[in-house]
């Protein structure tokens, strides 16, 4: 369960100032999914980073399963089984090829991995170099390693980006499957109009 209570934050840089989340509160019960919709710069990514303990915040409190994120900061991952799918997924790959990346993270030995490789239709990409992959293929490789982590709380930043319709449908099916298995899911998107997520949604206001 995620609880966001009276959250406010201010970024400053020289004379530049930006206010996010004016006294913003919501909660996401365990086993449910929520879609955060907002224009760019409304704080979608920042909120996910805050929940992972990667970003500090001025006012308010965040709790995950009753754990205070402010107190635990980056150690929140020790208390809560969470995974974060970042927006710029390519930044997070350490190796040169898909297979080496999966070897490094121990995924290739994982019992789940075969079904996940099939789910995201990326078996044929295993021995490819990341430079050879298209935007959508990179996104699917990232999704595969994200879901293989089998975490209880899934934080997904614009997971639909770069995906074509077929692969977006595959991703939606996977999200549904994760929900049925009791996972809690938080998704962000800039545009929920053209191909909407079938979950409860919440609109972030740009201040």
């Amino acid at each position, binding site marked *: 369960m995620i609880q966001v209570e009276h959250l406010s934050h201010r*970024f400053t*840089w*020289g*004379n*530049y100032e930006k206010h996010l989340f004016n006294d913003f509160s919501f909660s996401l019960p365990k086993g449910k999914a929520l879609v955060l*919709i*907002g*224009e*760019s*710069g*409304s704080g*979608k*990514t*920042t909120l996910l980073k805050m929940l992972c303990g990667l970003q500090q915040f001025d006012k308010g409190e965040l709790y995950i399963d009753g754990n205070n994120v402010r107190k635990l900061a980056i150690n929140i991952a020790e208390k809560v089984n969470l995974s974060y799918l970042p*927006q*710029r997924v*390519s*930044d997070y790959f350490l190796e040169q090829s898909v297979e080496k990346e999966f070897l490094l993270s121990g995924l290739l030995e994982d019992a789940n991995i075969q079904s996940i490789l099939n789910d995201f239709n990326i078996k*044929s990409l295993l021995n*490819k170099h990341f430079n*050879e*992959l*298209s*935007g*959508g*293929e990179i996104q*699917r490789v990232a999704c595969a390693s994200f879901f293989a982590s089998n975490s209880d709380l899934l934080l997904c930043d*614009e997971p639909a*980006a*770069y*995906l*074509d*319709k*077929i*692969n*977006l449908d595959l991703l939606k099916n996977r999200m549904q499957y994760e929900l049925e298995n009791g996972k809690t899911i938080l998704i962000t998107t*800039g*545009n929920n*109009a*053209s*191909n909407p997520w079938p979950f409860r949604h919440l609109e972030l206001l740009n201040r």
Partner: protein
Amino acid sequence: MHLPSLKFQYKQDAKFALDIPELLLDGIQILNIVGNNGSGKSTWAKHLAGLFHKKNHGIKWQYIPQFAEQFLFAQTINEQIKYLFEHDFIREKFASELSDLALPPNDEFMDFPMALMSGGELRRIMLAFAFYSHKKHIILDEPTIGLGLKESLVLLNKINTFSAMGNELIIISHDKTIMDASQHVCAFENGTLLYSQSTEDVKKTSLLDQFIG
């Protein structure tokens, strides 16, 4: 819009080959490319822009990549400007490109670290550089990723103004909103051309359903 035929094969990958015929699209100023992931859209566009080899295809296209961080290498907008331009930089013109895309055209914003900006802000900054560049032939690869609906409409407006000035655009996109700007649609499949039709005609059929949600 006249686009040369392109054939290409990766040395290491015998399975994928790009083989797109010459496209003679008279009177077309905005072309939309659709196709599933890995169908060769970006590879084709990079060839057109001469990013793989210096073969002269006639018109030089400017390629704007799908990952904004491949384009924005400096720490701030002002720093990127210093690297890209010399004395010929016209600040007022660049500022108007920023405000056309609903970004604040002031120094506070232009000195703000880009590492702290959101994906949609970075994408619009990259697009502002593209429209500023004086190039008359621009390829936009997935220009609406990270943008909200309102921002996509702002971009749609900008694209229409840009083409009304006599410029040509190729847009690679799965986005229904941005497709409205185009006059023609080409669909790629497995490195080949699946169809080439006017946007008006293709919208009447179900041909787009497999690509666009």
